[in-house]
């Protein structure tokens, strides 16, 4: 039995949408995104009064969501199928086609790479903040991002030239 106090309720109401969007971009699955955020909030509520959680709740929630996501991906490693994205419509590309292609390509990236891209280009975090959140060095973040972009560029260029 736990108590959700006023501050926690206000936090969920203010940040719920943002956390769901963040989780959805990480996993590209609506049901899984709901599960990730619910699990993260339950963990947060259990530790709400612990030092640091209520002080920086958004950062804490993001960290729990990312860790849950990466842990879940490790548990079901067979679900990771890199390089199997089907790219269609190689002729003249409009903007929605480009974004759709990038979205599908991102689904083929390793979960950690996608997390870096989402944190950097959706949450607008600095590499230092991303490194703190993921528990790695800044150089590692830059390296992961560079590899991800290399993959995206190769596939997009291949499609455009086809």
């Amino acid at each position: 039995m736990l108590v959700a106090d006023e501050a926690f309720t206000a936090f969920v109401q203010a940040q719920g949408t943002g956390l769901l969007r963040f989780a959805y971009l990480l996993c590209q699955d609506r049901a899984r995104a709901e599960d990730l955020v619910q699990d993260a909030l339950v963990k947060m509520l259990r530790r709400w009064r612990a030092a640091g959680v209520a002080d920086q709740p958004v950062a804490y929630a993001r960290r729990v969501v990312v860790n849950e996501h990466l842990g879940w991906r490790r548990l079901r490693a067979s679900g990771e199928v890199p390089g199997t994205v089907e790219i269609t419509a190689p002729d003249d590309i409009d903007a929605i086609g480009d974004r759709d292609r990038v979205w599908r390509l991102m689904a083929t990236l390793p979960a950690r790479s996608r997390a870096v891209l989402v944190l950097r280009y959706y949450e607008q975090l600095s590499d230092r903040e991303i490194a703190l959140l993921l528990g790695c060095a800044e150089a590692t973040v830059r390296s992961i991002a560079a590899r991800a972009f290399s993959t995206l560029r190769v596939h997009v260029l291949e499609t455009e030239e086809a």
Partner: protein
Amino acid sequence: MDAMETLVHETLAEHAADAPSDDRLLAAVTGAPRRRPWLAGGLAAALVVGIALGAVVLRAARHRADTAAPPLPAGARSVSYHGITLDVPSRLRLNYQPCLPPRNEVDIFIGEAISCPPVSHPESPRTVVELSPYRFRGNYRSVPTAVDHVPGGVVSRGIGSAQWRGVTRPTGVILAPSAGVVVAVTAPKRATIDRILNSLRLTPTDAFGCPGRAPTEPESARAGLHPISADVCVYSTLGPGTTDSLVASGQLAGRDAVVTANAVRDWIDQTRLALPSAQLYRITFRYADGSTQTVAVPNTAVTAQTHALLVPR
């Protein structure tokens, strides 16, 4: 940001809107009903909850909601093609690949006549829905479209005018690149175009549990004797690149289900003829004891009666 970084940023911003709603989020975590922010301060002081139970109950409810089919408007029926579902007027009939090469852009034509629509009715304004592979979207380049959110994803949608065999008509267009589909709609009334366009949703499976593309079945199984119902998915097997498109689906009950099961059993037991067939049927028979059995057979194995029930022509 360079061009690729900008593209990634735009992609994420666009798809973020597809995330699930937070309507039930607080209730999922606390078991409490959702409150408006201006009420939250006064009401949220002491919510004592059983967290695990609340989360489990909500997830079960959510999964039920996800699988429930939306109510169909009166006088309409759903049609599915690859990963999309549309509600169209029930009176419209359906044809596969109505235009022979070299004008074979249209995979499925749903309309008031069964033929290649631009040839048969160049001047008369009739309700016509064309479903085509995404690569033919250029046919409707003159129709301005804008990115729009629909249930299940994002499409590009708009209404303008397009040439139908030399005749300019009001035309609604939906480009759904994630499904690889272009939808073009023309009708005498603008409201009809709007209704059809607005009914589109991106659906991995349709209301009868049929995947948008034919799954690979290991082998046809022998149907049981007395099914109480049969969920049927009909897939086109004609034409390059269109061999696995879901083109019709529905549920047969009572005698119709039993007749279909008998036909499937007879085909498996006696003939197994490998005749060229226009469609593949994937049928899930349901039995009174709650068990199910899925079979995959060509349309040659299924009676004309079954075909007529599922594919109105």
